[in-house]
């Protein structure tokens, strides 16, 4: 760098604030910045003291807002799902969520679980009817509905879901009259549906499609239903009924009514034979049954729990559809 340039730089370097100017500017600056405190001074009390409840409530409001949105959203979906039919996207929600809530709240509302299940069976059948009316009742949907019905019947019966529920029809296998297994093959619904005109007493009910060795579809309560071989039906009211037994008997009565009410779709769904209704069967001890097999439930005051042939004597049930 040449001398002139050096001199110029030196002159420029000498340019600076005087000590007086510097002090004055600094004092003004301190005064100014004291009017604009650092953000930490403003935020520090908020972080520890009085502002904490505000923050808490702010989060609480956010949480409530989220909860509200979820509730409204779920409620709306649930409402839409309620109108859905098998095969619809929201139908699984109807089955698991809506009906799950119904099942959970039923005991608290004083409704027996079995009664709820009867209503749900009715619902399944009505859904099937709607699908059939819309010509949407495909074989797959039929099977799905049958599975649901079987599960619900199993709950009513306090048994495992019927293993061979997917069988489209029950198979009635001829057996000899001397076969004393006949009575055990009668469902507690008190009726069976012979598929031919052979004597009902020579029929044994199986529910399998191809394999008769599969579990029978009979819904056989262990204690409540008494079967009496030889057609000597009648009420066996020796054992006192528990509340559970009464509920079950009422539910079975209700189920029978539902099945009767929706018999057309029951037949269209090809539900297992035990779900089908025969003439003369029904609540209050109406005569029916198979081959003298007296199937009855313990007496209850309402009389609604007695199914099948109470009078026995070989009176075979007549298939209504015949």
């Amino acid at each position, binding site marked *: *760098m*040449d001398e*002139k*340039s050096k*001199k*110029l*730089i030196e*002159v*420029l*370097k*000498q*340019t*600076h*604030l*005087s000590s007086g*100017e*510097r002090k004055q*500017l*600094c004092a*003004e*600056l*301190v005064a*100014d*910045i004291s009017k*604009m*405190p*650092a*953000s*930490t*001074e403003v935020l*520090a009390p908020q972080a520890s003291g009085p502002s904490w409840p505000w923050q808490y409530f702010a989060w609480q409001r956010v949480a409530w807002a989220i909860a509200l949105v979820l509730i409204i959203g779920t409620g709306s979906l649930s409402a839409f799902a309620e109108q859905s039919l098998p095969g619809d996207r929201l139908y699984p929600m109807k089955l698991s969520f809506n009906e799950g809530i119904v099942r959970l709240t039923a005991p608290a509302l004083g409704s027996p679980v079995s009664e709820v299940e009867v209503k749900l069976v009715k619902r399944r059948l009505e859904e099937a009817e709607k699908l059939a009316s819309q010509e949407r009742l495909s074989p797959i949907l039929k099977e799905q509905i049958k599975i649901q019905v079987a599960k619900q019947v199993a709950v009513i019966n306090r048994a495992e879901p019927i293993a061979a529920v997917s069988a489209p029809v029950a198979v009635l296998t001829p057996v000899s009259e001397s076969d004393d297994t006949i009575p055990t093959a009668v469902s507690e619904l008190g009726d069976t549906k012979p598929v031919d005109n052979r004597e009902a007493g020579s029929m044994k009910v199986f529910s399998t499609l191809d394999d008769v060795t599969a579990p029978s579809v009979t819904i056989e309560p262990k204690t409540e239903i008494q079967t009496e071989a030889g057609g000597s039906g009648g009420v066996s009211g020796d054992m006192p009924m528990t509340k559970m037994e009464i509920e079950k008997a009422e539910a079975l009565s209700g189920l029978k009514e539902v099945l009767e009410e929706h018999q057309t779709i029951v037949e269209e769904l090809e539900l297992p034979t035990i779900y089908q209704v025969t003439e003369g069967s029904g609540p209050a001890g109406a005569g029916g049954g198979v081959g003298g097999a007296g199937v009855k439930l313990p007496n209850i005051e309402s009389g609604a729990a007695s199914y099948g042939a109470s009078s026995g004597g070989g009176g075979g049930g007549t298939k209504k559809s015949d």
Partner: protein
Amino acid sequence: MAGKPKEAEFLKAYEAYADAIFRRCFFKTSDRELAKDLTQQTFLRAWTYWREGRDIENERALLYRIANNLIIDWYRQRKSESLDDLLEKGFDPVAERESTEDKAEISWALQNLSRLKEEDQELITLRFVEDMSPKDIAALKGEKENNISVRIHRALGRLRKLIT
């Protein structure tokens, strides 16, 4: 007090860079009082960043950037009146200087500096008046160090030609 360290840190930066910012403003405006005012404004604006706890990587770069923006604003208001014009009108940029000899030297220095391009003025000032290394200038301007070194060398050559 939670804010005190921040204020103390800021005043420390003021002590370190007040003269440099003042010079920057003074060389560009040739008005001592105005340069003081712009310096004050520069630090006040910087404080608004500081107080919010923003991450400031380079304090000097921030101050220079603010000062430059303020100078540009001032220029826009002044409708670009050149120093030569001002001097011809009797404007005395170093009025507070007591020594007439000093005044003459500064006027001479400012006149010559102002004849350089804006970019050259800035590089000469930063490198030789503020004693910043090419590396720091490069960081300040966001450019490569080699590039800055070359440009400083060329700016110095142009200054030499002007004053000889």
